[in-house]
């Protein structure tokens, strides 16, 4: 591998370490004011929803509805009807692969 590639890898490792360490180092180990924990409790729905839409409704930097969108929607139905995580993911994969095989 070239020296430039190693520089990229080392730089990525350092930057990722710093980002992951920042929150726990500055705020860790103590309870935060209630207003703040209200925000933290809402981080999960905000970030999870963003993960879902950016992966299911977009392809790189453009919006894109495809077989995977249908697969993820099917997984949503499974969970909504009381199914757990693994069956939901299995249904998503099966629907996505099935639609791609057809078309």
């Amino acid at each position, binding site marked *: 591998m070239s020296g430039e590639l190693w520089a990229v890898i080392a730089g990525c490792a350092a930057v*990722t370490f710093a*980002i992951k360490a*920042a929150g726990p180092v500055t705020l*860790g180990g103590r309870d935060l004011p209630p207003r703040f924990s209200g925000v933290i409790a809402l*981080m999960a729905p905000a970030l999870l929803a*963003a993960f879902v839409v950016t992966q299911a409704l977009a392809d790189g930097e453009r919006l894109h509805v495809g077989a995977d969108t249908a697969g993820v929607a099917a997984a949503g139905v499974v969970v909504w009807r009381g199914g757990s995580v693994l069956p939901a993911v299995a249904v998503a*994969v099966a629907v996505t692969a099935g639609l791609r095989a057809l078309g």
Partner: protein
Amino acid sequence: MSAIVFAGSAQFAAISIVAAGGGVGAAIGAAALMNARFLPMGIALAPSLPGSPLRRAAQGQTVVDASWALANRGDGRFDRHFLFGASAVQYVTWLTGTAIGAFGGDALGDPRALGLDAIFPAFFLALLLPELRDARSRGVALAGALIALALVPLAPPGAPVLAASVAALAGLKRRHARATAA
């Protein structure tokens, strides 16, 4: 790279820039932007991590999307041992997968034909739905989704998810309304 960076989307972002002839700085910048989402995730996790700053920095390294989501107990706290365990499993499989891909990737065929790209969004959706217990979390999830979607065509990869964390700030001002309701 999988061994010491351990953040798939950032690795792909950096490598694709290098492959396209971009510079070292641009590649690292793209990875930083992609990984900036770990900043709000780390802040959310912080109160659940005990010990000295050095220990907390080390524990913070275990955060990846899926284990962060799994360790979330829904009340603003996180199960840190669950987080460590879930990340350890992923670390081993990530390294194994990288090695298989590097040495035998051509034999496996197209992962998209197998529908494997639906795994992560389906998994995150399955974790999201139980979070939507009240009107407030539903509103925040909707706002986060809209912010992220709106930014996808405009912002570089990674930025939309980071920006979506702003929606959680609704927790600041709605606190009074909830206190009266409870």
